[in-house]
């Protein structure tokens, strides 16, 4: 491609012109972001505009909804993409006045906007007309104020209720036709993989309705990042979003966003180390997903679970050698990585290669133990079905989408790091069920191993005098005021995106995290409708959510 650094490629300019024609007078002004063209629209035109963009222009992926407050207005940004080509992005910016922050809901267009807008209402305080159920989602119902709005006073006391578990059985019996029963799963329950509360309504033995109740681990990650300086203070936090050893993948999301915002070029050598570390993280993360899933569906505490943890320990040892920590690596730096591979290098290469050499035998063992197991298959095949269209509507990404046949992987479709130069495949499955998702993860482990092996080859042959691990980055990083960027990477669970708005200081004006688990979990209701409770547990396990990332 012959793209200049400043000028847009010709087809992109054409694309923007077509969009401008499509929106016509509904687009009030342009407000371009670093990653995408942006159009400002009236709060009353949101549904109209989004419908057109989805139906006529093919933007079928509502990646993220960002809400924020400026001095003179509230603003909602819809970050839209195409599943077929995630580099084709557009931002729809909806300003609303401070005294009446009401805007049309995007939920009728993109189902996934439901939770995103509830979060925007909860944290920033923008209200959405037409929204089916605009309530707080992360904070308790009785919370006072909207914490990411300008007027919030953090010192004020709060009262939080512990509602006794409601039992709708009784009121339901007033209506003789209905005999549903209410069942709580969580928030303290071994099968919920953390502190998730699933309010389940049963009709006989089948599930009539479920509602995931989240926010039991909402630790203000966005606020933490907005209080930190770009250079060093933000990087430790991504490790703690998806804490299942996916640290480096998460760090890359922040690194990619800030490097694009501040126009920092990362040395190739550092990119290879990043790729190597990230794929090791993916292996560790998928191992845990597999082990806990086996635990969920046939209570295998001894064999499969222990085997996967044995392999995780090996990966964690390698990562510890590389980064110095077992889980919270804090290894990436803006513009590179913290340090070079550990000395003696040969030992590190040998240890990693040993692990890779043994991996195929282990994967075969898992297949013997799990995927060919009859009980396992009975529990997983044709349960928790998620159709591709539904998956897209809910903004599902990662192995959840790929298990439903949606061929979407940012490592290939929106290349970053060193992935472009390596030989590997994107794994997709057409099963759409729990089984397909598990197989997807297992095959991804093998693909990741391929990537790691190629990275090792390149690193071994890399000239000794050219091992540059960090770009030259100013000590105090201050991106231009009002520059905005939304950038995503393929984390273990799917598309992990970061939106940063710079306000000219050394700290972000707004830092928004698009977590893949948040969107994926939303699809749970669709997947478990009409199934049994054990299928719900299996579906939850196959979604592989991490509550730290759902709640942030």
């Amino acid at each position, binding site marked *: 491609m012959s793209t200049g650094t400043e000028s847009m490629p010709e087809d992109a300019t054409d694309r923007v012109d077509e969009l401008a024609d499509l929106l016509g007078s509904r687009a009030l002004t342009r407000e371009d972001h670093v990653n995408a063209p942006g159009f400002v629209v009236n709060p009353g035109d949101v549904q109209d505009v989004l419908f057109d963009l989805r139906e006529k222009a093919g933007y079928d992926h509502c990646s993220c909804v960002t809400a924020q407050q400026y001095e003179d207005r509230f603003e909602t940004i819809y970050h839209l993409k195409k599943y077929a080509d995630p580099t084709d992005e557009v931002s729809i910016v909806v300003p609303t006045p401070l005294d009446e922050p009401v805007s049309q809901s995007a939920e009728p267009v993109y189902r996934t906007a439901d939770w995103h807008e509830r979060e925007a209402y909860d944290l920033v305080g923008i209200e959405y007309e037409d929204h089916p159920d605009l309530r707080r989602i992360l904070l308790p119902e009785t919370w006072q104020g909207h914490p990411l709005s300008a007027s919030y006073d953090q010192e004020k006391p709060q009262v*939080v*209720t512990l509602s006794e578990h409601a039992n709708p059985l009784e009121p339901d019996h007033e209506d003789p036709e209905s005999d549903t029963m209410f069942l709580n799963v969580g928030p303290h329950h071994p099968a919920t993989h953390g502190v998730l509360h699933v309010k389940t309504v049963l009709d006989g033995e089948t599930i009539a309705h479920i509602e995931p109740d989240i926010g039991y681990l909402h*630790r*203000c990650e966005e606020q933490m990042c907005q209080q930190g300086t770009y250079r060093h203070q933000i990087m430790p936090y991504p490790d703690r979003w998806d804490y299942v050893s996916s640290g480096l993948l998460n760090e890359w999301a922040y690194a990619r966003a800030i490097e694009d915002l501040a126009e920092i070029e990362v040395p190739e050598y550092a990119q290879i180390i990043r790729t190597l570390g990230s794929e090791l993280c993916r292996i560790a993360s998928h191992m845990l997903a597999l082990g806990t899933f086996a635990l969920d569906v046939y209570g295998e505490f001894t064999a499969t679970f222990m085997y996967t943890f044995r392999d995780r320990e090996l990966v964690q040892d390698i990562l510890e050698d590389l980064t110095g920590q*077992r889980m919270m690596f804090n290894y990436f730096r803006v513009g590179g990585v913290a340090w070079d591979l550990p000395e003696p290098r040969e030992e590190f290469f040998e240890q990693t290669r040993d692990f890779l050499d043994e991996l195929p035998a282990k994967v075969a063992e898992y297949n013997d133990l799990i995927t060919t197991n009859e009980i396992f298959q009975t529990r997983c095949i044709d349960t928790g079905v998620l159709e591709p269209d539904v998956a897209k509507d809910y903004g599902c990404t990662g192995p959840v989408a790929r298990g439903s046949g949606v061929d979407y992987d940012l490592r290939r479709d929106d290349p970053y790091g060193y992935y472009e130069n390596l030989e590997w495949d994107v794994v997709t499955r057409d099963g759409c069920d729990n089984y397909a998702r598990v197989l997807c993860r297992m095959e991804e482990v093998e693909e990741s191993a391929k990537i790691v092996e190629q990275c090792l080859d390149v690193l071994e042959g890399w000239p000794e005098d050219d091992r540059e691990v960090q770009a030259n980055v100013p000590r105090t990083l201050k991106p231009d005021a009002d520059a905005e960027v939304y950038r995503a990477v393929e984390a273990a669970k799917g598309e992990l995106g970061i939106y940063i708005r710079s306000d000219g200081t050394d700290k972000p004006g707004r830092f928004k995290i698009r977590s893949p688990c948040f969107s994926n979990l939303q699809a749970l209701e669709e997947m478990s409708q009409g199934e049994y409770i054990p299928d719900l547990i299996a579906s939850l396990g196959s979604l592989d959510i991490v509550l730290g990332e759902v709640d942030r």
Partner: protein
Amino acid sequence: MSSDEPRQTIHGSTAPSTDTREARMGEGADDRFNSKLREAFGTSPFILTKFDQFMNWVRGNSMFMLQFGIACCSIEMIHTYAIKHDVDRYGAGVPRASPRQADVMIVPGTIVSKFGPRMKRVYDQMPEPKFVVGMGSCTISGGPFQEGYNVVKGAEEIIPIDIHVPGCPPRPEALIYGILKLQERIQNGESSPVVVKPYELEEFGDLPEDELVQKLASEIDEDDLVMRYNWADSP
């Protein structure tokens, strides 16, 4: 065959199994309850000790842990239970899913406002005597999230904690060390004083009237359980 014959006879025995059955019906301890230790003490051994000391020793060596995962630290906690570290070796590794069957609660992660009352409820459901290990910086002070609007600044604001294991997250080795320290303390009959006044789970009607309570009165029933956080007074 009676119990005061040495245990070695069992090894050479080719007698049919009826002998064993008769022996079981006889007096004294069964051979199967015999042990090298008992042999060392002689034919019908007994020990003298203080009851309290004996009970503490027993308690320390048989701890049922609550299976309680909250955040990042729970991953390291699982590693502590699993292969390689295997905390079961120390008589402390049976994860129980129900708080009513557990003696020890490891709090592995950040406590936020919404989860505070739930954790208190889980803690209250555990039978006495119960012990708590606070795992990681978040349970000590809120850790890296201390400045968060929603974060309880240490689990000790809500429940008393016996052992703090620092780290973010602590390595499995560190957690095992903490558990061994707890066992040691239990065996010595030591317990921790509660140093922080915890946030209480109380009925809404019992809260002192103030602006906030008046505002919420229409939403919350008088006898609903609530927890009131005083963020400004938090350490």
